């Protein structure tokens, strides 16, 4: 075969080719060059928009709107100003929006329009590897966005302890990942992008407004407050705010974290099963 001079044939066993079922990390690792190539082109835009969005939000909501809010720590869940109250919640809500944006159209595109996944799954890679690599890229995006957003908040005196920003950052990424896994799984089950409009209008937007990012959920009345506390975003908002303000009720923080982790674990299986079912035809 080699005598033909063609770069083909041979039937040699490639590294990993005898392994039935690559380990998760190995399969994800094989896609790092792909995602790194995409990142090299987009990271500047991600970072730039991550600076701009918080500036606009903090200016509009924290400074201009907050200037009219005459409330103290007792009514603002321990925050000394409306700006300090709203900022940690805004970052958590922004993480949700970023996660949803990254797991709707891009996922459908890779299934249906560019059919990137079809090419990936014709190799030894399996759906769990493909989902793992895509979600890892979303986590990176969330981390970059939340880190920049959080840094922008530092000069505004939002944080009350040295460790608060780090813990708040972790909780913001956590809530973002919870949304990413569930929306990813949903996107693998949708056949038309029309449904994304509904997700944004009936899911993301009401959550954004009523999950405690802009006002204490206690303002919603007893029933309303409990309904708000059932939403995934509230757990992220609450956790982010408690850490930022150094006003942590630990058992509540444990519940918030457990809920988000449970959502991530279940969302992972929902995503992998969704992609596997969708691609097997």
């Amino acid at each position, binding site marked *: *075969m080699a005598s*033909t001079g*063609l*770069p*083909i*044939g*041979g*039937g*040699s*066993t*490639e*590294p*990993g*080719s*005898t*392994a*039935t*079922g*690559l380990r998760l990390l*190995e399969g994800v690792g*094989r*896609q*790092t*060059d*792909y995602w790194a*190539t*995409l990142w090299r*082109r987009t990271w500047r835009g991600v970072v730039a928009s991550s600076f701009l969005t918080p500036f606009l939000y903090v200016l509009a909501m924290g400074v201009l709107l907050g200037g009219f809010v005459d409330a103290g720590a007792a009514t603002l869940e321990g925050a000394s100003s409306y700006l300090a109250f709203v900022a940690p919640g805004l970052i958590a809500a922004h993480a949700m929006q970023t996660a949803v944006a990254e797991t709707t159209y891009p996922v459908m595109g890779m299934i249906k329009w*560019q*059919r*990137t996944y*079809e*090419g*990936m*799954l*014709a*190799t*030894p*890679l*399996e759906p769990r590897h493909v989902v793992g690599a895509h979600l890892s890229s979303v986590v990176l995006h969330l981390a970059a966005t939340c880190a920049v957003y959080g840094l922008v908040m530092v000069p505004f005196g939002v944080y009350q302890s040295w460790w608060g920003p780090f813990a708040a950052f972790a909780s913001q990424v956590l809530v973002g990942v919870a949304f990413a896994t569930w929306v990813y799984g949903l996107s693998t089950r949708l056949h038309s992008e029309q449904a994304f409009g509904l997700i944004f209008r009936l899911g993301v937007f009401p959550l954004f407004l009523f999950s405690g990012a802009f006002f204490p959920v206690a303002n919603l009345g007893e029933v309303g407050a409990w309904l708000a506390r059932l939403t995934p975003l509230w757990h992220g908002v609450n956790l982010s705010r408690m850490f930022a303000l150094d006003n942590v009720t630990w058992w509540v923080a444990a519940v918030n974290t457990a809920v988000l982790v449970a959502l991530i674990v279940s969302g992972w299986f929902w995503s992998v099963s969704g992609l596997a079912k969708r*691609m*097997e*035809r």
Partner: protein
Amino acid sequence: MTDSMIRARGLRKTFDKGASPFEAVRGIDLDVRKGEAFGFLGPNGAGKSSTMRMIAAVSPVSGGELRILGMDPAADGPAIRARLGVCPQEDNLDIELSVFDNLYIYGRYFGLPRDVVRERARELLDFVQLAEKATAKVDELSGGMKRRLSIARSLVNRPELLLLDEPTTGLDPQARHLLWDQLFRLKQAGVTLVLTTHYMDEAEQLCDRLVVMDKGVIVAEGAPHDLIREHSTREVTELRFGVGEHAALAEKVTDLGERVEALPDRLLVYSADGEEVLAKVHERGLEPLASLVRRSTLEDVFLHLTGRTLVD
């Protein structure tokens, strides 16, 4: 090591479409051996692509038995796919990446070391004559170039078995011939080729052996020239009359050949000597608007076996 690349017995594929499941492949037997160029010929909807997806170990088998490279796709999918090359019907190249990166990144999915895959990408771009386009975006390539890049990509893991689903559909004649040349060279180099096509000339050019599929079953199997000899005559006389006249005129020429087929746009008279048939047609005072004498092809085999043309 076994020489059997593909072995199927009673292979089935069923799709659940609500209350009425659709059976795309209805129990087929296949044996493809190492080094063979094997084809699935049939019209759209015959079950070729469904069969190819099962062979590619991406679509679960609904029934029967399938072994690829001696392995069970249900249990050994990743190990099978590591040794296959797949060129899908519609290109799924990454349009956001350069030509070179498409090969490089795909090679990485197989776990190939970076320096190895870089070297292979360069060799493959030479092979498919796209070396000067290495840094171009995929969007800038013509349809034929994209197909060649798809084929190059499917070769990046040096597969033992190359699956090509409708490799030249939608290409202009020049691009088709260039692609055929490259596939022929792969075949000569010993790569086992399995392709689907609804072009009879493609099947005749490339395949050592083929199966004719229709409605999910195999209706004939053999080497192209054997199939023609078995299911058709040596020559065919095509007669084109006015629109709507063909069915009525068929009766007037039915005794001139072994068989006559009346299509909406022409009459086909099957015989050993086409010119003689044409002379007799003129003797009978029939004046076709156009006529043609040619050798029988796989299209005629298909028409004879199914009563339909390949491209409906």
